[in-house]
């Protein structure tokens, strides 16, 4: 067992546990987007940052990937953490404003405006779908491509992968737009989360750029039959 202090509270967790697990174990809320129980920790969204260490050596780490260490002092809601978290949410709101999940998180953190140029992207590249596909569905049909600005998710060469079984797992785990396309009847698969949007899969032409990794899309396929 490893004993560490979280917000001044001494906690014992098993060896190999992450800071996020330790924090949640004792009930300190840490928001996450890219984390999902059952998938390997990835640390992409940075929303789960917590402050560790003291004095000049204090630093922020993503709690979902950082292993619990003996005697570690963790702060989950210090000023530095909150400043970082708010900025991350502001950046997310600036890029993916339609996501209900992000809107709710931003609202909960008291963010009333975002100061960047508004973009209308959908994906935050958290990689949940990719890990779901590879680790849980044992398919590995989609993956990351490119780097920096050109980074995207999809099948190689944007051709439907032979590995894909159209299970829809990738869509199911998407944290940014949790409820889209989860319904089996396309007409009723109206995005519950982002009610202001027509579901992307129903009007392909109109939302050609939208996030839908399935090629062909599950919902669209069902519609055809």
């Amino acid at each position, binding site marked *: 067992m490893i004993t560490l202090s979280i917000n001044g509270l001494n906690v014992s967790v098993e060896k190999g546990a992450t800071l996020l697990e330790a924090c949640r174990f004792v009930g300190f809320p840490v928001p996450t987007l890219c984390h999902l129980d059952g998938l390997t920790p990835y*640390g992409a969204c940075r929303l789960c940052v917590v402050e560790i260490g003291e004095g000049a050596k204090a630093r922020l780490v*993503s709690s979902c990937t950082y292993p619990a260490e003996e005697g570690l002092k963790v702060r989950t809601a210090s000023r530095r953490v909150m400043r970082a978290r708010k900025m*991350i949410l502001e*950046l997310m709101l600036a890029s993916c404003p339609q996501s209900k999940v992000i809107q709710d998180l931003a609202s909960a953190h008291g963010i009333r405006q975002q*100061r960047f140029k508004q973009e209308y992207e959908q994906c935050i*590249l958290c990689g949940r779908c990719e890990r779901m596909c590879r680790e849980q569905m044992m398919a590995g049909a989609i993956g990351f491509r*490119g*780097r*920096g*600005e050109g980074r995207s998710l999809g099948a190689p060469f944007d051709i439907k992968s032979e590995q894909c079984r159209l299970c829809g797992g990738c869509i199911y785990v998407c944290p940014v737009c949790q409820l889209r396309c989860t319904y089996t009847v396309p007409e009723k698969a109206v995005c519950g989360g982002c009610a202001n949007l027509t579901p992307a899969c129903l009007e392909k032409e109109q939302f050609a750029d939208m996030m839908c990794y399935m090629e062909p899309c599950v919902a669209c396929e069902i519609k055809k039959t």
Partner: protein
Amino acid sequence: MERLQSIADFNSLRRRLQVDSDYSRPVIVIPAGTCGQASGAKDLILIVKRELLERGLTERVSLRITGCHGFCQAEPSLLIEPRRTFYPHVSMDAMSRIVEAVANDHVLDDLLYIDPLTRQRIEKQDDIPFFRNQRRTILARNEKVDPIRVYDYIKADGYSSLVKVLSRADPCWVIEEIKSSGLRGRGGAGFPTGRKWELLAAQHDGHGKFLVCNADEGDPGAYMDRSVLEGNPHSILEGMLIGAYATGATEGVVYVRTEYPLAIKHLIIALRQARSMGLLGKNILGTGFSFDVSIVRGAGAFVCGEETALLRSIEGFMGEPRQRPPFPVDKGIEGKPTVINNVETWANIPIIIERGAAEFVKVGCQRNSGTKIFSLVGKIKNTGLVEVPMGITIDKVVNEIGGGPAGHAKIKAVQTGGPSGGCIPVEMFGLPIDYDSLSSAGSIMGSGGMIVMDEHTCMVDVARYFMKFLKDESCGKCFTCRKGTQRMFEILEDITNGRGTMEQLELLAELAHVVKDTSMCGLGQSAPNPVLSTLRYYRAEYEAHIKGCCPASVCRALFEFHIIPEKCTGCRRCVSVCPVGAISGARAEPHNLDAAKCIKCRACYDVCRFGAIVGEAIVMQPGGEKHRAAEPDATQTHPLIEEVSQTKSTQESALLAVSGVGAEKIRLSAERRTSRSKGSVKAKATRLKGSRKKRR
């Protein structure tokens, strides 16, 4: 190539090589690294070979083709040993004369290096200020060795450190020696190498351990690792062999970028030679110690220089960093313990073993021992690779070795540590170059890039340039690094285009701090450095941009060139260099610059010797109308920009003049200026207006 069966075999081979060589015979040394070849060293080699054969000098004069010596400014250059005569910028025509002079032991005075400061000719390489002020230990070995000839390296005491280690047969002693030498990783972070090795040696894993040489040098304008790999690949192998012996590692990997074909070629040759001589592979020199090295070619992603991303790349995955801990020394390639060191670190190892740690510590300063190679580039007279002891001041490197500013403009700042480093202003040039001082100044040592900037450089534009690089090179895994660099670039782009606001500046600083705080790897954590350091030292320049003026006349949207008729002598130099024909005028009469045609390429600005061409701020008015800001005061004939770049106090007053005073004054003063040559200017003004409309 004979296979050496024992240490005695090796010693006798070395003795034989050293006895056989005739040190008095003149040698023509041609540096032909990538930089040398690009400037024509290959042609020189062909000519020298032909001349030697034609004149029957093959028995009297030798030729040695080596890697880069460092003085890239003077390439293609020649070094004649044993006199150590140095010929810079050797042309093909001069080559046959040089060969003749070498054969007769003459020196060709007219081809010697001319010191730009004293205008005197200097014969010996070691007397040239660029070389004299350095302390060359690693680079000096490049001169002695033909990288594709292992015998050259052995003759120059190569592999003797390995033999020393093997005959001592005490791995702990090696680690103690490296530890007491105080060698810190030359890749940038400065982690003590000895400690790293100690941690690896302490790992008791029966499945093997890895050593990695990180030759993924991605910083723009930095090429230290390339020149060492190209010029002396055996020294890297020797360093790795010593490291493997000390730590018990079984496999080595050199991760080198595919963009370095010559380095890869030399490395492959070196590996083949070392293997066939029994210096690499199983049972090295009959001691029972086994170690082999393979090459992995990187595809050139900047982030793969980061150690965890590099490991992923070696394993064949996408180059993406992961969370540390677990550190590579616990879990590296395929989960096995791994130590990663930079090329320069490995090159230092044989030197430490050869000379002893006590000797090594004497060079450099407290906690920063040894020498460091910097690639000194930018607006200075002598560019190239310089090797200096740690703790030397920036001033010494820039002004003594670099020879001061290249043009007439004064030096303004130096950017260290590559794209994720920071800018250090000229006022702080007394700062010693070591890991700790640089990071306290908001920059980093990095792998050793050093870009000198003069007053014609806009710091906001510099930050924008580096941010563009980082935005493209961020792996994109961390949301904050990917989006943060994109947003920082977006804001910097706005500022350089005159659309910036003070709120954006605050946002930029806030965002930079968060990106630094929350990113996973070294790239993201240091990505905001260019912004933070320029904001820290050149905030006034940012504010000037927001008020609509680029003090250095770089940001195209914020200035227009025009010619001061009083200063223009009508020499037509600018007319001849203008690529779009925007400048017109007869000889000996003041020229006229058509701002509508001008593409602001700065060619005229750079050639004008009279300071007659100046940039003038275009001020954005509240209505969106652009105005040219003229002289803030009638008595001042100097335009605004020149004033701003000269002193800080005038900078402030000039800013006030631009910002505080309303459109009225600006328009008035603009009229005052135009009244100088009314006829032509009026026509120009209408043209200008039209062009601005078009631009909008």
